[in-house]
């Protein structure tokens, strides 16, 4: 868990790009793909994103390991849309209250692809970006307040620590006779107790970490940066690449006649 937040030995090309450039592209993709629900724009974007995997040092196995909740969510969204959306066109499957028609299937597929196309850039970003570098870029380039950015960064380190602590507290409580057996109500109470134990430890740790940071002079109005966040020619390519993918997705959908501005339609 703690190790999941570092880059290990990832030396892929995109690890060298400025995190803010990558972050900007992710935002751009999200906005463009949120505009329309159609399967063409989503699949074009998705195809390009898959092509980027090697550049970010990401493999399908790693993707599943880090992004499976997003993938499962996209699949569930697609499935429920297919069975719940109003039926249009030929009915393909009808099981009582659930039915899948050509129209609802198309909509569901669009939903699934879109979910994946929006989720993937975020996974790509995190797989080729060290959180410390992202914090540097957000504070130095995006000019977010450094106290906020660095405070969040330091707190993120504690999150991994807390995951280990949760396991330990669970064992320590079993050794006191608080079991994960019993009725659901008893289990709920046991979990609440364990959460309280974790909360106490989290607060102690956090306040001690705060003292450490303050004793190292953190909290002043001015500070210098040991790591300068810089842009390079690579970042131009990153941004251009992002624009290209977005434009290609929109153009393909408009060309295929499936571009469907969800928000405009309702008015």
């Amino acid at each position, binding site marked *: 868990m703690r190790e999941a937040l570092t880059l290990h030995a990832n030396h892929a090309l995109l690890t060298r790009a400025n995190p803010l450039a990558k972050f900007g592209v992710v935002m751009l993709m999200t906005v463009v793909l949120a505009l329309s629900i159609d399967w063409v724009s989503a699949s074009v974007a998705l195809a390009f994103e898959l092509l980027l995997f090697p550049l970010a040092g990401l493999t399908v196995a790693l993707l599943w390991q880090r992004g499976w909740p997003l993938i499962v969510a996209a699949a569930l969204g697609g499935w429920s849309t297919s069975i719940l959306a109003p039926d249009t066109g030929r009915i393909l499957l009808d099981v009582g209250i659930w039915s899948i028609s050509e129209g609802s299937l198309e909509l569901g597929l669009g939903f699934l692809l879109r979910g994946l196309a929006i989720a993937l850039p975020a996974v790509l970003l995190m797989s080729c970006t060290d959180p410390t570098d992202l914090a540097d870029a957000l504070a130095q380039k995006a000019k977010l307040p450094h106290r906020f950015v660095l405070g969040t960064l330091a707190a993120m380190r504690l999150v991994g620590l807390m995951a280990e*602590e949760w396991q330990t507290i669970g*064992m320590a409580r079993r050794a006191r006779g608080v079991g994960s057996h019993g009725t659901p109500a008893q289990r709920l109470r046991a979990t609440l107790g364990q959460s309280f134990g974790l909360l106490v430890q989290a607060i102690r*740790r956090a306040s001690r*970490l705060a003292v450490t940071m303050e004793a*190292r*002079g953190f909290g002043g109005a001015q500070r210098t940066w*040991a790591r300068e966040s810089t842009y390079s020619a690579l970042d131009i390519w990153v941004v251009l690449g992002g624009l290209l993918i977005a434009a290609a997705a929109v153009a393909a959908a408009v060309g295929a006649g499936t571009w469907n501005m969800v928000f405009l339609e309702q008015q």
Partner: protein
Amino acid sequence: MTFSDSVRPAAVTARGWGWRHAGRSQPAVHGLDLEIQPGERVLLLGPSGAGKSTLLHALAGVLGDSDAGAHHGGTPDAEDSDETGTLLIDGAPPRAQRGRAGLMQQDPETQVVLSRLGDDVAFGAENLSVPRGDIWKRVGEALDDVGLAHLPLDHPTSALSGGQKQRLALAGILAMRPGLLLLDEPTANLDPDGVLEVRDAVGRCLDKTGATLVVVEHRVGVWKDLVDRIVVLQPGSATESAVLLDGSPDQVLAQARDMLVAAGVWVPGYVPATRTRSGATGVPGATGGRGAGVPADGDLLLAAESLAVSRERPRRRRFKTVPPVPVQSGITAQVRAGQALTITGPNGSGKSTFALTLAGLLQPVAGTVSATVDLSDGAGIDPYKWKADQLIARIGTVFQEPEHQFVTGRVLDELMFGPRHLGHGEERVDELLERLRLTKLVDANPYTLSGGEKRRLSVATVLAAHPRVLILDEPTFGQDANTWAELASFLSELLDAGTAVVSVTHDQEFSDVLGGTELKLGAPQLNLAAREPGPRNPEVAAP
């Protein structure tokens, strides 16, 4: 530029200084008068509650804002903290001089701020607005001084041992070039190797920079030769000065040896008196019984056979269950009634993990842990499969961090918890309260107790369920000499009464008192991921 020409040793002056924490009725420090010359190295001693940590925090400038000025003419509000007298570094208040003093605390996990080695060292210097080029020069020098220069700058800080984390913290402090080093029990949570690592690094840096040192630590032997002055504090009052004794180490130790011993300070050359085991099967220090599994008289209760252990759970991958990589394997050991088993070995050798597996709290990766019929009493052979209440009546486990095991808000409820669940054994609670000196604390909240009290309570709560096997993870870590002696004596009594005691410990004197056999685990297997968390704060952390 080197440290020596850039560090200006700081002077400390306290005149009638006192501090009351917000929400407390009594001041933590009262009427402190103390002069520390630039470059002096001072060891602060004193009973818990004498305000040692408060003084260090104040010097580091991290105590909350005081409202001393806000109450002119009015009565001070108990909800706010309150400062009296003056405390100065080089004639100015510590708060106004960021970076003049550097503070190291005891929990290694919270001494690390960032996830890459070099970035963490640079953090303090950045905050002091040191120009970028200078920062990296300082980082390199500081890492060199603490002996971590062999690691790459992007080395993950989470992969460091406890002693390395503390040395990293020292490097981060050195990079700020403070004139005053403040160490608050910097080695209390480290194993013996880690203690020396940190102590030697501090010594080297002081020799190089000439900075002033104030260290709080109750193991006097570790620091005695490094400091040139010992100051003993006491809880000050209107009539008594906060400084009880002040002088050279030899002088103070000669003058106040008995008093320090009585206060639980680890005075060099003194091992607290403990109860001797009657008819002990293992003679203290005897080597004949080394290696577990030596036939002995006590009934066999629990046995580990070719055991491989890990904290990780098995993973599912492509419909197959993939077992985790063990931190240690091939462990065979026997736990017998009335006998002590001590588990030793270097950091990362899986000592705690083995103990937790033996205790039925972790699933073995390979091999078996089996309870004999004597112990299982109908609950089945595998302790991991026992229900929680079956487990506590058979095997009791005391974790390194007592707070992890607190499940109620009152000392008495804490002790009654096990017996109430089991439906018997409540009569034993009074005896335990008495024996472990907790009688006066029955209504207190467990979280508010002192370190030694928490340790005694955690042992008592586990024993209240009357287990035949007691497993303890580093029970003596960070304990003062009095708690240490009480614990060792109490466990030797339990052994004589027929309880099996298994302890994970680095503490040779402690295992000598208990006798029995020693199981020595080898160096960690060559696997970078197999890292056992280093010893940590007895007040906070995971074992």
